[in-house]
């Protein structure tokens, strides 16, 4: 009987573990994974832990449960900052949307020097928040040194307390943030206008639609998704930025312009207070609010379902 010699089964992959690692997906995943773990995940988990402690800079904290959160929601400074942050967020986002759309529509038209105008409107967005704060402080500060009051003076109008009156300071901060975020809004709105098929506009022209009709019935509905994304990005930016208001008013007068991010910074690092546990609790509250908007964004863009899939 002839024996049948079975060929020995060779492993399909004879590569060593190192070679498999090098030729697998991990080399491309690891840099991002390490970055994510060191720069995002670890600080985030650490921050949540700190929010349940009374840690101060230089002193190890003890676990105090929800006490930081209880104190926060009884603290008049924090509560008034929530109220102003809400107003600030709605007003800046609405302002940025409105003026962003208006400028995008204007820049859609053909005219000489369009590129220069577009660049000019983008500059505030590129400028650092601290620099923007200093510039506006110099322009708004009362006395003849301030540009705004100097202009009013030329018209024999008495100077306005732009930053030292609570209501005016609140409006001034909102105005500066609208100016600062306008470039980003303009960029997105311009992109949104560009993806509208030209044939639709031409058809509407042939049908005799007015400019406002084209805007209301074609352009705005077709830009719906872009506007939603723009709103969500602007809301997240408004919630997390503090540097301009830090320089412009420092949250004053009397806390009138304290936005949550600034309260967090001051609690954790400002004026030698160093209440890291409390500051972390404010950060967690900010995270929860931001998360709500991120969830809306993810749903809106179908991000979770995956882009590019058939």
């Amino acid at each position: 009987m002839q024996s049948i010699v079975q060929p020995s089964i060779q492993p399909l992959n004879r590569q060593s573990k190192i070679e498999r690692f090098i030729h697998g997906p991990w080399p491309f995943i690891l840099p991002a994974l390490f970055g994510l773990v060191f720069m995002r995940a670890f600080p985030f988990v650490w921050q949540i832990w700190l929010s349940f402690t009374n840690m101060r800079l230089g002193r190890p904290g003890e676990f105090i449960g929800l006490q930081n959160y209880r104190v926060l929601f009884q603290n008049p400074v924090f509560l008034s900052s929530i109220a102003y942050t809400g107003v600030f967020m709605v007003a800046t986002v609405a302002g940025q949307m409105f003026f962003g759309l208006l400028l995008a529509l204007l820049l859609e038209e053909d005219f000489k020097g369009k590129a220069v105008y577009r660049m000019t409107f983008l500059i505030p967005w590129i400028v650092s928040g601290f620099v923007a704060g200093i510039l506006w402080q110099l322009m708004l500060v009362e006395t003849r040194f301030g540009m705004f009051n100097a202009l009013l003076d030329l018209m024999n109008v008495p100077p306005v307390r732009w930053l030292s009156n609570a209501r005016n300071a609140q409006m001034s901060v909102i105005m500066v943030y609208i100016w600062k975020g306008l470039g980003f809004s303009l960029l997105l709105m311009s992109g949104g206008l560009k993806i509208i098929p030209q044939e639709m506009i031409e058809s509407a022209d042939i049908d005799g639609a007015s400019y406002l009709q084209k805007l209301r019935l074609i352009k705005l509905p077709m830009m719906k998704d872009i506007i939603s994304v723009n709103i969500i990005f602007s809301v997240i930016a408004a919630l997390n930025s503090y540097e301009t208001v830090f320089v412009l008013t420092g949250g004053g007068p009397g806390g009138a312009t304290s936005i949550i991010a600034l309260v967090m910074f001051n609690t954790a690092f400002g004026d030698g207070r160093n209440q890291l546990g409390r500051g972390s609790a404010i950060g967690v509250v900010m995270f929860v609010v931001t998360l709500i908007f991120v969830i809306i964004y993810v749903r809106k863009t179908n991000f979770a379902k995956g882009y590019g899939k058939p």
Partner: protein
Amino acid sequence: MKALRHISILLALMILFTGVVFAGGGQQAPAPAEPGQVTVRFLVPQWASTRDARIERQVAFQSVIDSFHAANPNIRLQEVVSTASSYDVDVANQINNGTVEVVWINNPFYPTLQQDGKFVNVEPFLSEADKADFFPWTFEALKSVNGELGGLWHNTDVRLFFYRTDLMPTAPKTYEELITMTRQIKNSNPEMAAPFFASLGHTDAITHVWGNFEALGGRPFDDNGKPVVLDGQNRQYWERIFRTFKEMMDAGLIPESAAVAREAGVVPLLLSGQVASFIANSNYGVREIVAKLPAEEAALWQAANVPGYQGTAGGRSVSGGWVFSARKMDDPVLQEAAVKFVLHATSFMAQRNVNKAGGWTPTRTSVFQDDPFYQGDRFMVAADEALATATVRPLNVMSPIMASAIADALSQYLSGSATLAQALDRANTIIQQEFSNL
């Protein structure tokens, strides 16, 4: 593709390495010393080191290191320049991890570490002459935390009243006099935007008037350490201080922007010649007036003690500044070497050279008496006089919280967003709430 994979792995390793290094706070291992030598690492911010861009600072700090090496050949100094975005965070990490032996620390942060007994008591190492040379309040303040002298005050500043002598021939002794003088200036110089400027929107404001509060008889804490800064009589003192500023602001004697301004808010008015007087720290004389104004205009400026209130002791000012401290450690040889450096870095020579280069105010009386610059500079002479009677805001973890709450109250009252009673009630609620949660 293969090269890309290798680059990617390299990148991952770099991130891992960076993560590990930064997790250690950028700490430095002691450099190898010669046989028989010990290495003392001292932590300083970049702007107070040999690596600062300003040549005069580089030279001054290097002279301190070189002279120490010459006097102590068995000790090697290693300057650790902080690269952290928050210097206080770096100090805390490096002291708690034992990775530096000496730190230069801002005085409001000193109590946090000294409460846990982190620093060596340097008092036994001081000669009687040294003890007599430092301004007495430096020892009182540093010892107030746990009874030990956990460092030596290296440089300071004291609030001064700066005034233009062509508009205000003599400095007012009281706020009542100041109001009368500034009204006259305003009447005869309608173009003058601000006869008087006091930054009132931040804790700077409380630093300005802390001496006034104490001179009026105010006590921030009771005998049990409970904050009573806004209780009973203390509250009435603050009401008096607040009302004075409100009166001046309503009369146009203080610019309204002062309600939100930090100390540096005076600089644009100073440069435009629209301010007749202001309160700021003593270094403004050298760093702002002399350095930035034309010589003939700078010559018009003079400085004096901050005004007081009628019926109370004269205006008293408050100091800030930085302290050299040595970490407590098990190695007696290394600890002794660290203390030696603290003594050297705060010696007459070091204080004279470094403070002059930095534009700061020294804490040794001998520097004012024996150095020609400090003897002759009118602003430093005023600083010396003010420092003799100065007090420091209590070195206590509640102090920054109190200052912040009272500063907010002042700003609310001045800007019209709250009545005086509402503003002070709110501040007291915050202070008591924070105290009960310490």
